[in-house]
C-alpha cells in the first residue's frame, strides 16, 4: 500500500476533491453541449469538459490542452523528496492524431503520396515529432518537479491504475521516497466521439440518464487531469484483473478485483450500460453488503486514464472527512479488464 500525501485535480466539476464532492452532493452532474469545437455534426451531443483553459505555458507546443491541465495540477504538489528520490509515473489515455498539425502536410498531397515531401511533409513543424511524442509530459514534468528517480509512462484507458501500482512498487522497493503520479485523458476530440458513438459506449442523446438508472444509454465523454503525491505507508492499494474479452469485463473479473475485506463505500465503474450496471451492482452487493454506492464517472463524465487517480483522491477525501473508513473504486474502461483501488485511512498530511 501507499499513502496519499497530496492530490490536485482538473475535472469537469472542480479542482479539488472537496469542490467535487460538494457539487455532487448538491445534485450536479457535468455535461452539456460541446464548447471545445463544432459538435453538432457528431453523434455525441453531450460532453463533460474541464472548464476554462490551462495556464499559459512555454511548453504549449509540446502538449495538448488536457496535458497542460495536468502540468498545472502537478505544480500544486509539494513533495519533500526531490531529485533521485522522487519518482514520476505518468498515464496518458491515448495518442490521437491532431488535425491541425496534419493539415499542412496533407492538403496538397496526391492520393498515392507521390512527391510527398515537397507537397507537404516539409511543412511539418520541426518539433512535430516531439509534439506527438508519447512521453512528452513525463519529460516536462520531470523538469518542472525535479523528479529524477525511477519512473514510467503508461498508455490506455486504465493507465492511471498501472501508474499508481508501479509507483507503489518502487516505493516499497525503497528506490524512491516519494512518487508523483500524473494522469490525463480527453475523449472530447472528434475521432473519439466518432468511435465511442459507433460502438455504443457513449450516449448519443442530450442529458442522458446516469449510470445505474433505467434508460442509461452510455457514458458522457469527458476529460480530466490528476496528480497524486504518494509516500510509503498505508492507505491505497491497486488491483487489476483480466479475462481476455474484447468487451466489458465479466462479472467474475469485477469480483476478482473487488476481493478483500468488505468496504463501506463503492465508487462504481459507471459504464452506463443497463445489463452491466445491474450485474456489477448485484455482484458487488454480495461481496460488500453494507457498502454505500456512488459513481464519480457518472457525475464527472467518462475520464479514461485518470479515473483511478480521481477516484483515489475523492475516496481519500471522503475517508478523511469521516464519511467512511474504507472504499473501493472500480473501473472497467479497457476491454476485458477491470481495475480497482482500495482506499483506507491513510497517513495524516503535513
Amino acid at each position: 500500500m501507499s499513502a496519499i500525501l497530496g492530490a490536485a485535480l482538473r475535472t469537469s466539476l472542480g479542482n479539488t476533491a472537496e469542490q467535487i464532492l460538494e457539487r455532487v452532493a448538491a445534485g450536479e452532474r457535468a455535461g452539456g453541449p460541446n464548447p471545445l469545437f463544432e459538435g453538432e455534426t457528431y453523434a455525441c451531443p453531450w460532453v463533460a469538459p474541464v472548464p476554462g483553459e490551462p495556464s499559459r505555458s512555454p511548453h504549449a507546443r509540446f502538449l495538448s490542452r488536457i496535458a497542460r491541465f495536468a502540468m498545472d495540477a502537478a505544480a500544486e504538489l509539494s513533495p519533500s523528496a526531490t531529485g533521485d528520490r522522487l519518482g514520476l509515473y505518468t498515464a496518458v489515455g491515448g495518442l490521437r492524431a491532431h488535425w491541425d498539425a496534419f493539415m499542412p502536410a496533407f492538403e496538397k498531397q496526391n492520393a498515392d503520396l507521390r512527391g510527398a515531401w515537397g507537397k507537404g511533409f516539409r511543412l511539418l513543424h520541426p518539433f512535430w515529432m516531439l509534439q506527438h511524442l508519447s512521453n512528452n509530459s513525463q519529460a516536462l514534468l520531470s523538469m518542472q518537479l525535479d523528479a529524477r528517480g525511477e519512473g514510467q509512462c503508461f498508455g490506455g484507458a486504465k493507465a492511471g491504475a498501472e501508474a499508481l501500482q508501479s509507483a507503489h512498487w518502487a516505493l516499497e522497493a525503497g528506490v524512491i521516497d516519494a512518487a508523483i503520479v500524473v494522469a490525463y485523458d480527453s475523449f472530447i476530440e472528434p475521432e473519439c466521439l466518432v468511435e465511442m458513438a459507433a460502438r455504443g459506449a457513449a450516449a448519443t442523446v442530450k442529458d442522458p440518464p446516469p449510470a445505474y438508472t433505467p434508460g442509461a444509454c452510455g457514458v458522457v465523454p469527458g476529460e480530466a487531469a490528476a496528480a497524486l503525491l504518494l509516500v510509503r505507508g498505508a492507505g491505497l492499494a491497486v488491483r487489476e484483473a483480466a479475462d481476455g474479452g474484447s468487451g466489458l469485463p465479466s462479472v467474475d473479473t469485477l469480483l476478482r478485483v473487488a476481493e478483500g475485506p468488505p468496504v463501506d463505500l463503492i465508487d462504481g465503474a459507471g459504464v452506463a450500460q443497463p445489463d452491466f450496471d445491474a450485474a456489477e451492482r448485484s455482484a458487488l452487493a454480495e461481496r460488500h453488503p453494507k457498502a454505500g454506492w456512488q459513481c464519480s464517472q457518472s457525475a464527472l463524465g467518462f475520464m479514461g486514464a485518470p479515473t483511478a487517480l480521481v477516484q483515489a483522491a475523492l475516496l481519500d477525501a471522503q475517508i478523511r472527512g469521516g464519511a467512511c473508513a474504507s472504499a473501493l473504486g472500480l473501473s472497467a474502461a479497457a476491454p476485458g479488464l477491470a481495475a480497482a483501488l482500495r482506499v483506507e485511512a491513510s497517513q495524516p498530511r503535513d
Partner: protein
Amino acid sequence: MSSAAKVVITGVGVVSPFGFDRQSFEAGLRGHRSTVGPIRSFDARTFPTRVAAEVPVRSIDAEWLSGHLPGAPVGAWAEQGWLRDRKLAFACMAAAEAWRQAGCRVHEREAALSIALGLEQALLEDFAPALEDGMRLAHGEGLRYRAPVDLAARAIGDQLGLTGRVTVHTSACAAGALAVAQGATLIERGVTSIVLAGGADSMVNPLGVGGMARLQAPSPRAERSACRPFDARRDGLAIGEGAALFVLEHAERAASRGATPLARVRGWGSSQDGHAATKPLPDGSAAARAMRLALERAGRPPGAIGWLNAHGTGTPLNDPAEARAIRSVFGSHADDLPVSSLKGAIGHLMAAAGAVELAASVMALREDLLPGTAHHEELDPECPIRVIAEPTQAPVELVLSNSFGFGGQNASVLLERCA
C-alpha cells in the same frame, strides 16, 4: 536490495531488418552485417532522409500475412487491414515466435502482456480516400484512428488467446526495455507467473521519416554508414523498425513444465534526466543512476558485467553523455568493459529498440559472442569507453543493456546467463 532472481526468459521472437525471425537476427549480428539502405517501402526520394534499416518487406498484404503468420487466428485483424500496419504485423509475428519457442500452450494463455508501442497515428493509407475527396473528411469520419494505444496488445491477445492483464508502455525509446522490466516486476511481485513482454515500432513511413527529418535527428548522409555509434565522425541516427517479444516466466513455473530458460532477468533500473525535452543530460548522471539501480537490484557489482549493450544512437549528444555515464558507473573497469551499439547495423528501432537489443543480449549470453558496432571506425575522444567494432568471442555471465529515450527517460536491464 537484491532481486530474488526468479524471472527467466523461455522464448524470444524477433522481427528485424535482418529478417522475420530470431534466427535471421542472430545470423545478421554474427555476420556483422548492416541493414541501413535506401528506403523501399515508400517513395522517399524527395525526403531529406532517404535511408533506413527496414524489415525486408515492401508492403504487407493478406497473401504476405498468410505466409508469415500461418495458422494464426488473426481473423478480423487481417481482414480489416489493421495488420497492414507494419508494426502491428511485426508485433504479432514476434509474439508468435516467442510463444512457439517457449512451448506455450493453453495453460500459458493466462499470461499477462507488457508491451511497448511506438507513436500511434492514423493508418496512413486511410488518408488516400480522404485525399481523393479533397480532405472532405476533415473531422476524421471514416478514418481508422489507431487511437487505442493497446492496439498491438489486443491483436496479440486475440492471436494467442491471452486472458491476462495488459500494460502498454509509452516511454518512447526506453519503452521496450521498461516493458520487459515491468514484466519481470509482475512476476517478482507474484501478480502472475508468466508474461509476454517486449516492443514493436516502425517509423518507416512518410510521417515518421518526415517528422524525424524535420527534427534533423537522422544523419544527413544517405549512406549505408549513416549511423556511426561513438565514432568521431558521427552525425545522426538511422531509423529502423522491428519487434521483439519475450516469454518471461517464474523460474519454478518454467521448470515445472520443462521449458528451457534462455537467460535470467536479474535486474533493472530507470530514471529521468529532468533536463530538457529535446536533448540528454550532458553529464550522463541520470543515465548512470539507471545503470546503478539495475546493478543494485541484481546484487551485482559493476565489475561483474561482461558486456554493455549501449543505447549508442550515433547522435552528437547521446553518445558522449552515455559514455560519461558508463565511465561514472564502471570507473576503471570501463577501460576493459566491451561496449557495443547495434544501431549502426539495425538502426534505431525507437519503442522497440530496448526489446530487440535485449534479444541480442540473450544471444551474447548463450553463444559467448558479443556483437560488434557497425560503422564504428574511430573512437570519439569525448567517449572514453572501450567500443568493440567487430563481433568478439568472449564468455560473459552478465550483460547490461541501456535504452535512453527522448525526453530523458532512462532504462537499464541486466540479464544473466542461465547455467
